[in-house]
């Protein structure tokens, strides 16, 4: 990935943003809840995990095993954390979007 410009898919962007927002508490359930709450789409764990897998391959996030709890049937959580290169990719994606938005008559919603 070193010689290539970081690239982010749309859903990858949401997942990465969620990981960034949630900080230390970013795991499957919280990521899904946040995305569903903020975008209003229903998201499956399958989609989230395959996306996180891709982001991990790109080096944008890292993961660690958390503590198992009773309500999880004794299974450990897998926590995700955003990496520096992930934040760069996120900023890059946002600014590319903003540049293109400027070319249209659309304005970002917070400016209308």
């Amino acid at each position, binding site marked *: 990935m070193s010689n290539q410009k970081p690239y982010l898919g749309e859903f990858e962007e949401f997942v990465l943003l969620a990981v960034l927002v949630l900080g230390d508490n970013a795991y499957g359930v919280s990521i899904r809840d946040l995305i569903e709450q903020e975008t209003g789409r*229903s998201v499956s764990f*399958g*989609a989230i*995990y395959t996306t996180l897998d891709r982001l991990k391959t790109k080096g944008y996030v890292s993961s660690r095993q958390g503590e198992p709890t009773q*309500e999880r*049937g004794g*299974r*450990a*959580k*897998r926590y995700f954390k955003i990496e520096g290169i992930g934040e760069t990719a996120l900023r890059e994606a946002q600014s590319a979007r903003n540049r293109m938005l400027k070319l249209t008559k659309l304005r970002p919603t917070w400016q209308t």
Partner: protein
Amino acid sequence: MKDELRGWDPYPLKQKGEGEPVYWDEGHLERRERFKDLIRPAELPETARGLGGKLRRTREARGISIAQAAQSTFIQARYLEAIERGQIENLPGGLYTRRFIELYAQFLNFDGRAVSRALLPGTTVSELIKDSFSGVVNYNSGRASSTDATETKLPRLGEVLLYYFLSEEERDGFIGDVEETYSVIEVKFGTRAAEIFFYKEILNSMSPLLARFIARVILAMLNEMK
């Protein structure tokens, strides 16, 4: 089941009075497996027998026959009888075991969830997933009706695929997440809603997991061609 049959095992694992298991001949274990339905457990858990008996007495006190109960609950009579006798092992397995017990208990105005909890302590999503591997034979023979079959075929397949398409590392996180959401929904909206969530979740998760799997296979093939 007659009580004098309790403990009857035509293919015992070991001979009486000896510490080491002794198999009668090479086909012994195979026959034991084939005729495992004939083997009666020596002791049933007290709760299963007691609760089952309670359900039976309640039904009889109301003058409802097994056939009538089967008609009202849409559960086969033999399963209802199995519940009343506490023979959980004769139920179709997986979610069905739990659902049948709950429905039948509710039909008799018991707290369905409490009864199924007592009869099947600690049934969790991971166990349901495990069940879909071990319980296949059981499950096919126990299929109740055609509607039954359409309802369950896909999710079953889904559970198995889900298990194979998740990497070792993801498995705990993923299944734990499903489990956590399942219990949250169960507390808030009941078991029915939680089960619906569970199957929906597996179906919805299939397409991204399958897509990733196919992509990996193709990539591996391309690498081989180089």
